[in-house]
């Protein structure tokens, strides 16, 4: 039994060190900690096992996860309303180019890579999502034809940097005739 635990400890440690994805590494660390805790019980040390289970396994893992969740992912919500709504705004009927959103997404992604963020883009076509999900996202891109509205919170410093970045590289977009408005809430 003990030998098996020791072997799994070594395997878990190697996997933890070798994993590329940080969140997975943290989860593996938690698992390693849990196996350690079981091993300590087998070594007749229940006090240490309890401490390891509560502090090493739970608390440290949560601290790691909180940090990673706050600082690795840049959430982007891309909203393009359904066609019938667009048709009410008659000025964009002539072509279907509103589907062409590649440039701005690429811009946002480039920004993320330059800052070592993980872009996490979610597409939606429900208008009301704008209001209900606004607290979850760092930035919301709202498209109407060739017009883009970008919403972000003033307190989020990444959004402010993104605004500067887009201002710098706006010429690529304007070539296609797109226009961008940036709003800080």
């Amino acid at each position: 039994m003990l030998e098996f635990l020791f072997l799994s400890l070594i395997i878990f440690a190697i996997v933890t060190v070798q994993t590329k994805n940080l969140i997975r590494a943290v989860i593996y660390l938690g698992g390693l900690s849990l196996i350690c805790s079981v091993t300590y019980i087998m070594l007749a040390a229940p006090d240490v096992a309890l401490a390891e289970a509560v502090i090493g396994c739970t608390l440290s893992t949560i601290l790691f996860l909180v940090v990673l969740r706050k600082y690795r992912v840049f959430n982007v919500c891309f909203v393009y309303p359904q066609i019938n709504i667009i048709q009410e705004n008659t000025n964009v009927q002539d072509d279907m180019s509103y589907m062409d959103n590649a440039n701005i997404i690429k811009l946002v992604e480039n920004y993320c890579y330059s800052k070592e963020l993980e872009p996490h883009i979610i597409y939606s076509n429900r208008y009301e999502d704008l209001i209900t999900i606004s607290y979850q996202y760092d930035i919301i891109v709202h498209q109407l034809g060739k017009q883009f509205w970008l919403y972000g919170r003033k307190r989020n410093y990444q959004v402010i940097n993104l605004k500067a970045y887009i201002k710098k590289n706006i010429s690529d977009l304007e070539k296609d005739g797109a226009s961008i408005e940036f709003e800080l809430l």
Partner: protein
Amino acid sequence: MLNGEITSIILFFIGVYGIIARRNMVKSIISIGIMEMAIILFLLSVNFEKGMRAPVSGLTSNISDPLPQALMITAIIIGVAVNAIGLSLFINIYHKYGTTNWTKAAYKRRQGGRK
């Protein structure tokens, strides 16, 4: 063949490998955590023999060594404090330098610590 002490030596050097080979700051903190775990395992298995009982509820014969256990509770607390301080410094550095890579951060430090 595998006993606790040999396992912990191997674990310790896995941690050392992680620190030397991985350039991510969080990975370094994780690797230090693995090294600490290895040491805890080592100390607990120093005087351990099969069939020993836990040193609780008034037993006095055939119990495991209580001293390393008391020391290792301290080591666990130190470990979580180190993790917390390391992570908070990491968040700061990430905000200031915009990177989590040791090499890039060293380069940016030479430039005066801006993003």
